[in-house]
């Protein structure tokens, strides 16, 4: 289980990016962290990845405190970040250097087939399209079989069609070993397609605002009314997190006024 306990982050320049963020995420769960810009969602993910250290609170995975990158935690960034001097196959095998060459080759070949890029094994990263490159990045992160996979707006740089494609593909890959997925996104659709739970954050300082369980069976139909209703719930929560939903706020203040009277 991945446990975030009152995680806070204040950058050296005084920006309070994240404040007392707590969550418990079970093995195999898919959690989407969603929020407007500047609500600390990337900061949160980098802290879980061990790339940045929290200024307060703790991140623990199976009772191991995470303060540096850990073998059980993989991460996929917004950009593929492939190493341009390695072939596609070598990029995927980058995290497997401890394995003997034969085992590594076999795992890489399987991963390549799994992401549908077997014919690109010897291509250079620069020869790939954006979607293909991100697939390679996904394969590279999954091939060491992490227990937790973090995704930082992984599909936001892709066109809508490729994005959908990769979302479905990610779920497909996830079903193989069922790692925990923690996905940062600003795309409500993406959160509802993928996640068991959406954690809505609010900005300045970044805090947890609302938690929405998405009890939808997989595979999810993007056009079903139920899907729409979940989408609307997340959107409403997002709006409220940014103090934008006027009707709802009125209802609240009316209630408050009534009590005050």
């Amino acid at each position: 289980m991945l446990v975030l306990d009152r995680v806070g982050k204040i950058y050296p320049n005084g920006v309070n990016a994240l404040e007392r963020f707590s969550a418990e995420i079970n093995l195999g769960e898919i959690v989407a962290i969603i929020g407007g810009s500047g609500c600390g969602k990337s900061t949160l993910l980098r802290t879980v990845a061990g790339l940045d250290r929290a200024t307060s609170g703790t991140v623990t995975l199976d009772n191991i405190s995470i303060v540096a990158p850990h073998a059980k935690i993989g991460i996929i960034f917004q950009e593929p970040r492939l190493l341009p001097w390695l072939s596609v196959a070598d990029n995927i095998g980058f995290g497997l250097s401890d394995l003997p060459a034969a085992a590594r080759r076999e795992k890489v070949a399987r991963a390549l087939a799994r992401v549908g890029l077997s014919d690109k094994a010897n291509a250079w990263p620069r020869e790939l399209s954006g979607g293909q490159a991100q697939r390679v990045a996904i394969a590279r992160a999954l091939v060491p079989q992490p227990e937790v996979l973090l995704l930082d707006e992984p599909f936001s740089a892709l066109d809508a069609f490729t994005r959908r494609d990769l979302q479905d593909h990610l779920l497909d890959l996830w079903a193989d070993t069922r790692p925990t997925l923690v996905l940062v996104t600003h795309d409500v659709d993406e959160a509802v397609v993928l996640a068991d739970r959406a954690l809505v954050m609010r900005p300045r300082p970044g805090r947890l605002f609302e938690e929405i369980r998405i009890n939808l069976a997989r595979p999810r139909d993007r056009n079903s009314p139920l899907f729409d209703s979940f989408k609307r719930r997340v959107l409403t929560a997002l709006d409220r997190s940014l103090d934008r939903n006027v009707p709802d706020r009125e209802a609240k203040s009316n209630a408050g006024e009534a009590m005050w009277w």
Partner: protein
Amino acid sequence: MAMTVELSASAESEPVAKAAAPGRLRRWTRPALGLLLPLGLALAWELIVGLGYSNGRLVPPPTKIFATIVDLARSGELTRHIVATLSRVFAGFALGVVAGTLLGAVAGYWSLARRLLDPTVQALRAIPSIAWVPLFILWLGIFETSKVALIAVGVFFPVYLGVMGAIMSVDRKIVEVGRTFRLSGPTMIRRILLPAVLPAYVVSLRVGLGLGWMFVVAAEFMGASEGLGYLLIDGQQLGKPAQILAAIVIFAILGKTTDWLIEIGFAPLLRWQDAFSRQSGGA
């Protein structure tokens, strides 16, 4: 808006036009076009001297330069001079590259070292390298050591700057990938930093080598009994312009060849970078 449309239109039409020309023809015609002017001038000068319009004493015709090279080669003089110059360049280049790479790497990797070291190196760089000559002669004598030292100084600065700049500009995002895979310091250097800085490093080596060839001439001017620079001075003092031009031609050939050796030596390691330009060039 209209601007971008026009741009994309011309960018598209160009490859089409190129593709239309047969590839083999294009591969040979382009360098041949570049040779047209020098070869034409050489031929014209040869004719002018041959027909007696000029005596060609100060500007000897190509055949005379060629004959001078053949004469020098036959007597074994040429080999001796080339070996002398080449060994100076190599010794100085090796020294300069080793020192430039080490200091550049330290300064690029470690910011405290950069703050300590870089201002001094930059101040020394501002001194024209030839200004060291009298001092080097006093310290190291008139023979090989002072010459090699001067060449090494010339090679050092571009290599130092190139390595330091390359390390400092390595993409933080790529380094982060290394961190997420928990690479240790040495592994990070081997698997991320070295390949990332290699293209810039090769460029700085080539710049360094170019300066090495420049400084070997300066070094050989300051009193040498052999070497291509000596041939130049000797040709001037004895009034043999053909010998001067012969030495210049050989300098050009050697400089281009050594530069090319560096280029093809590193080519296998830089294929990833090269793939695109070669593809678009060959299409």
